[in-house]
């Protein structure tokens, strides 16, 4: 472990030392999971490996490391940057945007893409992918925007275009889970991205209800839903096949925008990504829905996904 990591570990230990209950420790770990990259998780694992086996920190980090989809160190690792609480950028110091795919993630109410962020990053080859995670701390389906980026959903889209050079990327995919699913679809349309993916996203009725409850006008949202810019993004709505609410949400969006629906068979849980993670199939599933390999998007070979 390098000296670079001593300080973060020290900060972690000091923060944990201030916790008086298991719930307070869990609160720290949940927050860390939303932000840490795989290399940081591995670094923490090394740092805590000699802690008592019953220590909450060691149990937590070891359980996360065991669950990482690949857990293989890369020649160059993802690093985290960004000074806005609601926007975090993950990129590696390798290659250039023009050869990379940018995934713009719209997190749900748990402020993650259904899984600890490191699990998603672990699947992506940093030489070919960058990831941005947007977080809606107001839990208003992004209607009230993200502080520092914009005070409304539409201002967030403008803000995003200002602080990220989207056209410089090989391609850009909006990827939203749960409370961020609809936002990914709308962002893909508004920003003319290559693809928009919703996983377990809320239906547009729920979005409109939220807009109205805040005393705002649904008009701009309806206009965006009706828009048919050319080129139009490839929209994919993924839902757990045995989850009635999520199926209803996907079908509700699918009635209003041209989109493919993908039903995940034998899955009754909202957390579709967790479903595939538990089956050690997360890289394959992400490759499938992205329409390109997470290891090398230029490779014509597709990883088989046994459903």
């Amino acid at each position, binding site marked *: 472990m390098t000296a670079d990591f001593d300080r973060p570990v020290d900060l972690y230990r000091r923060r944990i030392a201030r916790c008086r209950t298991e*719930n*307070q420790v869990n609160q720290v770990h949940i927050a860390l999971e939303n932000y840490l990259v795989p290399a940081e998780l591995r670094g923490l694992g090394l740092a805590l490996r000699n802690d008592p086996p019953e220590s909450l920190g060691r149990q937590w980090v070891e359980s996360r490391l065991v669950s990482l989809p690949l857990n293989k160190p890369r020649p160059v690792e993802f690093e985290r940057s960004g000074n806005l609480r609601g926007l975090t950028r993950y990129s590696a110091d390798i290659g250039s945007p023009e050869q990379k795919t940018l995934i713009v993630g719209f997190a749900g109410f748990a402020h993650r893409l259904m899984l600890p962020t490191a699990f998603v990053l672990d699947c992506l080859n940093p030489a070919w992918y960058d990831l941005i995670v947007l977080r809606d701390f107001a839990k208003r389906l992004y209607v009230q925007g993200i502080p520092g980026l914009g005070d409304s959903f539409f201002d967030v889209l403008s803000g995003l275009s200002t602080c990220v050079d989207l056209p410089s990327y090989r391609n850009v995919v909006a990827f939203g889970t749960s409370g961020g699913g609809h936002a990914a679809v709308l962002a893909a349309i508004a920003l003319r991205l290559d693809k928009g993916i919703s996983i377990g996203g809320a239906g547009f009725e729920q979005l409109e209800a939220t807009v109205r409850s805040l005393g705002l006008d649904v008009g701009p949202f309806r206009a965006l839903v009706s828009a048919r810019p050319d080129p139009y993004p490839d929209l994919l709505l993924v839902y757990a096949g045995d989850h009635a609410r999520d199926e209803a949400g996907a079908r509700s969006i699918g009635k209003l925008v041209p989109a493919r629906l993908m039903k995940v068979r034998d899955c009754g849980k909202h957390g579709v990504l967790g479903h595939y993670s538990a089956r050690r199939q997360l890289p394959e599933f992400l490759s499938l829905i992205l329409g390109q390999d997470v290891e090398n998007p230029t490779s014509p070979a597709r990883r088989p996904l046994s459903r």
Partner: protein
Amino acid sequence: MDRAQLRIALFDALQAANVPEAFDEDLRRSFLDEGKDVDLSQLEMDSLARMEFCIAVELSLGVTLLPRQVQELGSTGAIERFVAEKLA
């Protein structure tokens, strides 16, 4: 704190934990107004939601309830009684 206030706090904790059913008005009414005992198997609570629920309960009520206890207690009524005892 009376039972009605306790139920409100527990329901708010379910919402803080992003349990989808906690945003359902019918369930809210039956839980708060009718004191309905909801079996946790009827709620979509994964391990993260259980942790977030316990964190919210501890922050709002000062009572330490652990995720494994939530599973063992198994219903909102049992959780309510557990927390009420701790507050007494």
